[in-house]
């Protein structure tokens, strides 16, 4: 199956050779070799060839026709909720490995690949770490965010113009000198407030919200931080609690505006599961949108509860339980697809994938193949990885529908 996919892929994708650095285009190598301090003639020339190279590769990768429309995708989530994993899954679907801009600030938050540019909205902090400390506000508060600049630059990028975007340095907590950012085919803005400001929200074509329940957030942060020095159960708990009022006031309400919400909840299969290893994940999809169709299980619009384990599929404890049905979400019609439990073998995923419809996959087994490709990412054995991959395929569908018009 693997080889068949590789052959099919060959004329379209970049070679999936073991080490992409070696297969890099010479133009990019030249650009990374030149220290970009001042815009000297050679560096501008390099950048131009880089751009030309990128355009050429776009034609190969995308088969784009008349693709001068730039699609903006917004992703909202709190810190430590799997934004970066999600981003890697989405950009993986569009092909190419996302990399920080070469030669620039080593602490840049931007990730660039052939098709996509991912911007971290922390770069639009109006107050740096010290400023927030003095003002007594968190990064979650709208006071510490420069929405005017965010709107201006996202608008400019959507119109195909290049901008000088500031860099918020997460290590030093300072606002570093801006970096030049050129307009991509697909612009992804990720961070705490992509839909907070109505002007910015209007520019976004497809809105995604990662909604992690408090129990799971706590469990994930323990896994992430406990090995670090100084962290204790109390400190993790205190950190979540101190940020919670701002989170509830400014971040959480944005989920009402999202087109798709991935909700992560504690499992219902095992009583008192506290580790956050087994998850109940819900994909909430708004109905009646022009740019995408919700995924469904067996029969669109019905309510289905399905346990795939049985004669055709052996599952280990605690098994898998799927649910699908119509619902309302903050007064809007939605379809909900839910998966509780986890899989240990790939057969289980392809078996489930074959029963899902409207997944926007281009060939049978694409979801499974994408999951396999990223099998080392967190969440690859449960609903988070599955639904992130499905949302990634929906992003591609949104892109294709917009650029085809």
């Amino acid at each position, binding site marked *: 199956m693997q080889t068949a996919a590789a052959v099919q892929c060959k004329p379209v994708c970049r*070679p999936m*050779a*073991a*080490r992409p*650095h*070696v*297969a890099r285009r010479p133009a990019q190598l030249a650009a990374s070799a030149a220290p970009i301090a001042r815009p000297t003639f050679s560096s501008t020339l390099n950048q131009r060839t880089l751009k030309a190279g990128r355009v050429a590769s776009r034609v190969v990768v995308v088969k784009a026709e008349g693709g001068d429309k730039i699609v903006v995708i917004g992703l909202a989530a709190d*810190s*430590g909720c799997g934004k*970066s994993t999600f981003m890697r899954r989405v950009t993986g679907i569009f092909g190419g490995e996302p990399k920080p801009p070469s030669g620039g600030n*080593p*602490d840049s938050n931007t990730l660039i690949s052939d098709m996509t540019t991912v911007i971290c909205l922390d770069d639009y902090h109006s107050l740096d*770490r010290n400023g*927030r*400390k003095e*003002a*007594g*506000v*968190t*990064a*979650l508060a709208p006071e510490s965010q420069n929405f005017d600049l965010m709107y201006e630059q996202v608008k400019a990028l959507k119109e195909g113009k290049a901008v000088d975007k500031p860099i918020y340095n*997460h*290590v030093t*907590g300072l606002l570093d000198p801006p970096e030049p950012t050129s307009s991509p085919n697909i612009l992804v803005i990720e961070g705490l407030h992509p839909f907070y400001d109505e002007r910015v929200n209007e520019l976004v074509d497809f809105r995604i919200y990662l909604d992690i329940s408090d129990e799971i957030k706590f469990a994930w*942060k323990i896994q*992430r*931080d406990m090995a*670090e*020095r*100084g*962290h204790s159960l109390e*400190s993790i708990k*205190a*950190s979540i609690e*101190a*940020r919670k*009022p*701002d989170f509830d006031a400014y971040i959480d309400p944005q989920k009402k505006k999202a087109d798709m919400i991935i909700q992560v909840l504690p499992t219902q299969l095992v009583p008192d599961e506290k580790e956050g290893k087994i998850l109940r994940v819900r994909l909430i999809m708004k109905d009646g949108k022009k740019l995408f169709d919700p995924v469904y299980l067996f029969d669109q619009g019905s309510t289905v509860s399905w346990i795939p384990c049985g004669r055709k599929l052996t599952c280990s404890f605690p098994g898998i339980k799927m649910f699908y049905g119509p619902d309302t979400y903050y007064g809007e019609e939605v379809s909900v697809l839910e998966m509780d439990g986890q899989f240990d073998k790939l057969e289980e995923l392809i078996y489930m994938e074959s029963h899902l419809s409207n997944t926007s996959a281009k060939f049978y087994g694409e979801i499974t193949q994408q999951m396999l490709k990223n099998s*080392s990412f967190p969440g690859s054995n449960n609903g988070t990885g599955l639904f992130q991959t499905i949302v990634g395929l929906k992003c591609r569908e949104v892109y294709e529908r917009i650029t085809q018009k």
Partner: protein
Amino acid sequence: SAPKKEAIEAAIKEAEESCAGGASGECAAAWDTVEELSAAAAHAKAASSSTDPLEDKRVNEYCEENPAEPECRVYDE
């Protein structure tokens, strides 16, 4: 780059101190700093670690500089 472990430790200490007087803006801001540093540390760790020894960061850097060395050659045919 990753934030130093001492920096995280100091930030936690500072947060605990500024929250001694109960919940306040300063208290929330201090814990927010802790969260930011922890997230940066976790991201740096995720970016540098790989289970495949041939995809290790050091090997990658070496091969980027010396793509013609025998251990770095990849013929894409």
